[in-house]
């Protein structure tokens, strides 16, 4: 299946089961096409990995889906609704976490979570916060200022905030970047369980290829703002006769033109 914006692709991606549908998404900064006609969709229970070298356009795509960046072209549909027209209905049902977007360090952990529970319109915010503190092993830090926690503990707080609204769509931009391997593993398991239990979907970027292989049912390789490869991690590795996803990543990062769109999916 081609994923570079063709009509057939767009038609096939518009399925009832899709939580996120992106069609011909474009973002231009001056003369640079940072995101160039990207189309893909994410179904329920799917965790999609967005891969690519720095500057490929991954964060621009995530930011456009998160409503932080206005596209110059194309369409973003979430839960079947157009993001630009129905933001108010969409945003309470999705959430976002990024390694670079920590919560205010001068507020206590429980205060930060309570504020975001209110912002997302969570029913019983106090109960939800207590339950998340327990789930993310943060109870002992509830009254600690967030900025005093280690970067790994802060990442757990950010992930707790990302799940506070029981989102059906989760956008994770390098969510485990500052976690040690054991904690990262536990967090991945937590997110995987969450997705299968709640029938949610995740768009996940990471530079840790073993993490992507572990959690993602599908990956999209982005290069120069375009999706150049789309498929299951194991299938792609086999198709290009590489040992693992990391080798494939390096090959694509060095020679993106070696990948023909026909290789997608």
């Amino acid at each position, binding site marked *: 299946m081609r994923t570079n914006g063709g009509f057939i692709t767009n038609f096939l991606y518009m399925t009832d089961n899709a939580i996120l549908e992106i069609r011909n998404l474009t973002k231009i900064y001056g003369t640079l096409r940072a995101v160039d006609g990207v189309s893909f969709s994410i179904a329920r229970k799917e965790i999609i990995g967005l891969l690519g070298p720095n500057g490929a356009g991954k964060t621009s795509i995530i930011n456009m889906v998160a409503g932080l960046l206005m596209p110059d072209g194309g369409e973003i549909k979430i839960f079947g609704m157009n993001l630009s027209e129905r933001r108010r209905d969409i*945003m309470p049902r999705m959430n976002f976490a990024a390694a670079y977007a920590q919560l205010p360090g001068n507020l206590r952990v429980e205060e930060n979570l309570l504020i975001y529970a209110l912002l997302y319109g969570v029913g019983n915010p106090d109960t939800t916060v207590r339950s998340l503190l327990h789930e993310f092993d943060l109870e002992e830090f509830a009254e600690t200022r967030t900025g005093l926690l280690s970067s790994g503990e802060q990442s757990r707080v950010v992930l707790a905030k990302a799940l506070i609204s029981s989102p059906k769509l989760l956008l994770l931009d390098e969510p485990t970047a500052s976690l040690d391997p054991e904690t990262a593993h536990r967090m991945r398991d937590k997110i995987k369980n969450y997705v299968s239990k709640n029938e949610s979907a995740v768009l996940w970027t990471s530079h840790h290829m073993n993490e992507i292989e572990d959690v993602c049912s599908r990956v999209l390789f982005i290069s120069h703002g375009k999706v150049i490869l789309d498929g299951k991690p194991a299938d792609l590795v086999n198709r290009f006769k590489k040992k693992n996803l990391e080798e494939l990543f390096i090959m694509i990062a060095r020679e993106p033109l070696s990948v023909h769109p026909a290789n997608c999916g």
Partner: protein
Amino acid sequence: MSFQRIYAIFLRQFFLLRRSPSRIMGVFYWSLLEVFIWGLISRYLHSVGGETFGFVTVLVGAVIFWNFFTRTMNGISVSFLEDVWSRNLINLFSSPLTIGEYAAGLIVTSIVHTVFSIAGMVAMAWLFFSYNIFLFGFFLIPFVFLLFLFGWTIGIFATAFILRFGPAVEILVWSAPALIMPFAAVFYPVEALPGAFRPISYLIPISYVFEGMRRAAIGGTFDVRFFIIALVLSVFYFAGAIFVFIKMYHIVLKRGLFTRFMTE
């Protein structure tokens, strides 16, 4: 518009304030210091200048009214800067929060900040200098309303420019009152200004408030014409500030400038 989200924005600032002695001091200390100093100056001028002019009424009143404006303005712009400094804007604006709810949350925060700050000033002026701000009676309501409105206007303008140009222009927040004060007729009438500067004063709505305050204090009269001019100007500027704020927000979304707050 969700009141719960507006409350969340207020609560974020309240949590920040309640355990921070330096921020609590920021709400009370400078305003109390100003009343104290101007109260003493007024008392001294009264003792050497005789009883022909109500120095305490005019000068201490001016300080309290001026603080209404600056506290309101800072209540908005400094609260916004707290979110800039803590790099919280990406989390806020990827949530269901709308730009209108965020602005409303900052306005509520500014009202609470100002009320506490001014309550301290009024109490000190009454205890130390026997100055009763309620001597203005009914006139106090339009004066305070106009001061709030102009404070929000300048606070929203400053916030819009920081949103668009980044933390580098936060100097606007700190310097705006100093730029306005000479033309706002706070301690002297507009006629005391050189002729070339008076047109600037006539365009600043709070100059009519200070002129009106002096007339009310000295003559016990309320100039409706001043009030109407100030109200028209204030509403016009407030609408302009909202327009600029929304415009800047759209530029930020268009150019992806939220990420700048992560790096500057």
